């Protein structure tokens, strides 16, 4: 037994009281789905956890109708103060049931319990707490006085942070006065269904939040539904693109959080110990199942060998295994499908001439696993430097000058996040200025906070989640009564808009409103 070997320290599953099967959560009740139910399994053992209802189009109709009723009759009429109180209740209930949610999340998703316990679930509570306080302060959201909710929001979320993505979607939507139909990912529906029980405990009015489980076709039916006013999607760029096409020409507004291929730039004067930890956290956090993962390491050429050597040493101390074990650093890959994709892209990297190194570690017999892997000698044109792998695989590239680092970092259709490591403050700010990415971490990586806007440039999508900007994504400015005469009155017309409409792209016009939707999406306090 070396110093690296620890006795097992599994978190107890006794805290869970799971049902054998879960229905859809529609209009405040669990109901049977009309599609063929499917099972959700633990990716670390492939054992069955529960049967999950599958929503077909009729079920989506019911859910959207319930959300519409709740919007018309209850939620849009409720005071902001009371909406906020419900959200505060939810935040507290999440805190009370935090351990149970963490265990369920690690069981269903495969992520280490230390992450679900210390990152995911605390952030879920924080998200509800943050947006709870906004509910009665919407006049200050940056859209002028008396902004309006949008109506029914269709929200489709991924499997990498199942409950956290739910919180990112539901909290701002409800604070702004919208009602919700949310579809969790097919492989990770469990915590959303426990969350539905929390909503019952909170006595949230029926229909304000509806949760429909199913696969991609369920999500597509939801997004396409005529009764939906807003689409919020987190997932792949391919699906985001399809959604953008599908809703073109409709009045639906959209927020899309899509893929990324973040550069993590390490200069030779970086605090190297912290940088190594930051690189590891950047790409191996949550098995690399992170859209903003620092999957392209750009390291200054003169410290390349040292950094790679130290990375290998550090990675060799990571413990891969049972997600419920408190000592586990690397959990299971979420699904066989994802594992196959990681393998295929890694093999492509080898074929394209990159050098593969994987941590020599024991891989459990059952379940889906992939040892932390580093590719060196990677060309910028290689698939592993261009495509999102969404797994624990790091591609290492080099640069000589800051200009080269910036050019390589920006050489991607994505633009979600980036990292900068250097001790020189002025260089951090200058490089941050030139990186085309929505979130930039300097001397840190993968930090999230409900007050901090998150979202991408370019093909990483549009819209922001988190902060005031994330709230604006669920609001439109109050209609302004303005005559054409006032418009041509020039500055006075303009002046009115500043007062009434201010930062919102939606606000740009009153009558024939410039649907700043996509545009607005990515914007500032603006449209979203």
């Amino acid at each position, binding site marked *: 037994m070396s110093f690296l070997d620890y006795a097992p320290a599994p978190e107890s599953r006794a805290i869970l009281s799971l049902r054998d099967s879960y229905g859809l959560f529609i209009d405040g009740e669990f109901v049977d789905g009309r599609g063929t139910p499917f099972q959700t399994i633990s990716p670390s053992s492939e054992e069955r956890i529960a049967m999950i209802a599958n929503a077909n189009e009729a079920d989506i109709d019911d859910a959207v109708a319930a959300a519409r009723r709740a919007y018309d009759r209850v939620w849009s009429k409720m005071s902001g103060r009371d909406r906020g109180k419900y959200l505060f209740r939810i935040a507290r209930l999440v805190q009370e049931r935090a351990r149970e949610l963490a265990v369920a999340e690690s069981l269903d998703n495969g992520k280490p319990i230390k992450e679900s316990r210390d990152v995911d679930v605390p952030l879920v509570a924080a998200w509800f707490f943050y947006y709870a306080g906004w509910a009665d302060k919407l006049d200050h959201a940056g859209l002028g006085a008396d902004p309006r909710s949008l109506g029914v929001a269709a929200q489709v979320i991924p499997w990498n942070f199942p409950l956290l993505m739910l919180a990112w979607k539901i909290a701002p939507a409800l604070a702004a006065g919208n009602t919700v139909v949310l579809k969790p990912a097919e492989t990770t529906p469990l915590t959303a269904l426990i969350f539905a029980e929390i909503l019952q405990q909170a006595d949230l009015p029926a229909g304000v939040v509806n949760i429909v489980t199913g696969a991609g076709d369920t999500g597509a039916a939801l997004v396409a539904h005529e009764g939906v006013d807003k689409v919020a999607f987190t997932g792949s760029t391919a699906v985001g693109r399809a959604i953008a096409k599908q809703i073109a020409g409709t009045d639906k507004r959209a927020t899309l959080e899509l893929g990324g291929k973040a550069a993590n730039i390490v200069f030779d004067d970086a605090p190297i110990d912290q940088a190594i930890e930051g690189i590891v956290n950047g790409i191996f956090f949550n098995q690399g199942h992170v859209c903003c993962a620092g999957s392209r390491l750009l390291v200054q050429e003169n410290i390349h060998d040292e950094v790679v050597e130290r990375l290998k040493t550090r990675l060799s101390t990571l413990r891969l295994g049972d997600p419920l074990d408190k000592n586990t650093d690397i959990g299971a890959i979420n699904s066989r499908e994802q594992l196959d994709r990681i393998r295929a892209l890694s093999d492509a990297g080898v074929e394209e001439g990159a050098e593969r190194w994987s941590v020599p570690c024991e891989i459990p017999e059952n379940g889906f696993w992939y040892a932390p892997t580093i590719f060196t000698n990677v060309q910028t044109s290689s698939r592993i430097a261009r495509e999102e792998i969404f797994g624990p695989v790091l591609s290492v590239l080099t640069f000589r000058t800051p200009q080269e680092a910036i050019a390589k970092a920006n050489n991607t259709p994505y633009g979600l996040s980036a990292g900068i490591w250097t001790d020189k403050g002025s260089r951090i700010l200058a490089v941050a200025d030139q990186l085309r990415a929505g979130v930039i971490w300097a001397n840190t990586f993968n930090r999230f906070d409900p*007050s901090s806007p998150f979202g991408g440039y370019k093909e990483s999508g549009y819209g922001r989640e988190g902060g005031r900007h994330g709230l604006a994504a669920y609001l439109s400015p109050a209609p302004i009564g303005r005559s054409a005469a006032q418009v*041509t009155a020039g500055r006075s017309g303009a002046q009115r808009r500043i007062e009434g409409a201010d930062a919102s792209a939606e606000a*740009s016009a009153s009558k024939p409103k410039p*649907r700043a939707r996509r545009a607005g999406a990515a914007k500032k306090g603006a449209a979203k």
Partner: protein
Amino acid sequence: MSRLAVPKTYKLYIGGAFPRSESGRTYEVVAADGRFLANAAKASRKDARDAVVAARGAVAGWAGATAYNRGQVLYRIAEVLEGRRAQFAAEIEEVEGVSRAVAAAQVDEAIDRWVWYAGWADKFAQVAGNANPVAGPYFNISVPEPSGVIAVIAPQDSSLVGFVSALAPALVAGNSVVIVASERFPLSSISLAEVLATSDVPKGVVNVLTGSPAEIAPWLASHADVNAIDLVGAGGLDWVSLEIDAADTLKRVLRPENGPDAAAPALGRITAFTETKTVWHTKSLR
């Protein structure tokens, strides 16, 4: 004895130069009473692509200029336009068939909108951005940055004020623009390009195409190096198809607007072509 006038050849404006369409095509622009006025250049797909290349090349310099500087350049446009009020009023009177007073009012409004937007250049970031009180030892700030290259289909029923109203806000944050002028009233747009060329606007920051929006817009909507498209003047086109084309590269899209209210001054028209960047930095005494 009356003097024989010297008519102007109206060409495109790409990368700071005034080329004819590479296609060699022109189309007739006529006055409100049907009189021949000019042969305007009919831009092709290749012209549009050249314009995008010019615009992309200009982004770094324009976005990298200080906000104070951009504000001054935009204000300079107003100054130079003011000095040519009579020329523009006469041009508008002729093509739109309105009275001199109405034409002059349109020019004045256009000038005033340049002034209004010029003033926003060093202010909108303070309104659209903010510090974020994150729960940890981090400095965290969100700021709006230009989206990059913006394609604009200018309002089609106005010669100058619509064009300016769509163009000016896209420039404020530091974007470069490829703008397709009104098909029927393209002359003021090219005359305005002469103003831009003499107002310290760096070459390539604004590129003006005249011709058929229906022909050019699909190339711009699908161009992978265009970051956003403003369809404000595309109401008469199949704009839903343009929006679908734009989705392929996840462009930001502003929708058509109609009537005299189209593209009216608004902070939202500036922020529509920006991206929120959030920067985190650790705080430590060590």
